[in-house]
């Protein structure tokens, strides 16, 4: 059996068209109407003989699905528009950091200033405890309530008390190496984590550009 990789894009395009039809709640063509892959990837005599017809049928099906998905709305076809879908999009928070922050409850300690070389941060709940994690290069630091964290290869850098609760500042590894194999903390980072003051309220430096993903909203010029 010979593979016809030239037809892979068509198969992917058809798959997404069928998915779009499902999202819009339209009827999805059954398999017999959309021959799909067997028309593209087999090269047996029968398959070759039927291939032209199969491709033509697939093309018609794709055009029908795509047409109903892309043009149905403008033509006023209500079949593609479930009644439950709001015609206007309700607003929701777009600041991912705010979204994450709202989801966090319980004691949490955050450095008052941004760690040196910070690439990204995230807030997460592990085993019911709130954790602040910051990455600078290959250095990973977590701040969590004392004796509650069990990160791989963790090493306690400092214990701090904030608003009556005790927290630990940990360096850890994402690769399950023992503590003695952790990347050495650069002097600047070590000094920072030794000396920085911690707060339980969102500090001013923690803004959207430090959201998970690490990138500023770069879709400003979208389109």
């Amino acid at each position, binding site marked *: *059996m010979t593979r016809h990789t030239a037809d892979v894009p068509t198969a992917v395009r058809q798959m997404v*068209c069928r*998915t779009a039809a499902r999202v819009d709640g339209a009827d999805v063509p059954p398999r017999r109407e959309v021959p799909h892959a067997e028309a593209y990837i087999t090269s047996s005599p029968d398959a070759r003989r039927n291939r032209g017809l199969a491709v033509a049928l697939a093309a018609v099906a794709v055009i029908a699905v795509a047409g109903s998905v892309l043009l149905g*709305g403008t033509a006023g076809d209500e079949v593609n528009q479930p009644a439950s879908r709001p015609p*206007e999009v309700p607003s929701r928070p777009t600041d991912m950091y705010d979204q994450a922050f709202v989801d966090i409850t319980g004691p949490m300690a955050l450095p008052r200033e941004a760690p040196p070389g910070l690439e990204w941060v995230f807030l997460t709940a592990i085993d019911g405890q709130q954790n602040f994690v910051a990455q600078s290069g290959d250095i990973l630091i977590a701040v969590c309530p004392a004796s509650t964290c069990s990160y791989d290869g963790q090493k306690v850098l400092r214990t701090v008390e904030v608003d009556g609760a005790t927290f630990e500042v940990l360096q850890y590894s994402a690769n399950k190496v023992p503590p003695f194999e952790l990347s050495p903390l650069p002097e600047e980072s070590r000094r920072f984590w030794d000396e920085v003051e911690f707060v339980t309220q969102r500090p001013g430096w923690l803004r959207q550009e430090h959201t998970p993903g690490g990138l500023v909203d770069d879709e400003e010029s979208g389109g």
Partner: protein
Amino acid sequence: MADLRAGMKADGLDELYRAHWGRTVAVASHLLGDRSAAEDIVQEAFVRLADELDTVDDPGPWLRTVTYRRALNELRRRDRERAAISRHAATVTDSYPAELVDPIDARLAAALGQLRGNQRAAVLLCWVDEVSTAEAARTIGCSAATVRVHLYRARKALGHALEEEHT
């Protein structure tokens, strides 16, 4: 007059919503492997479009670019989160949008899901949205040559998946 303009804007948005919602969510779902996250991202893109509709010349490509970039940001965030909390990696898995995938596409969708995020983005941009490799490169944030490499590798991987489906 202001009411009339607001009404025309609402009509325009409604039309855009009907025309682009399904396809954009479908693409984002395949890119993220997660329907609910895809819907959130597309919805955010529409919210933003509603604010900027007066200044956007061609809303279709604008929506596509914003959606891809947000989805790629989300993929990068997940990669980093997985790496950072590796011991919890099992709990940070994508929920595959099985309800959106036709059974006949199961193997192909799974193979697409195995590709790296930027490869998936290249596939969806170039093969589904049919943009040029140069435009795909701008959206993904890499060179056009890299996009071509992504497509070459994806074509081999997905072709293999389709072949297995029929052996």
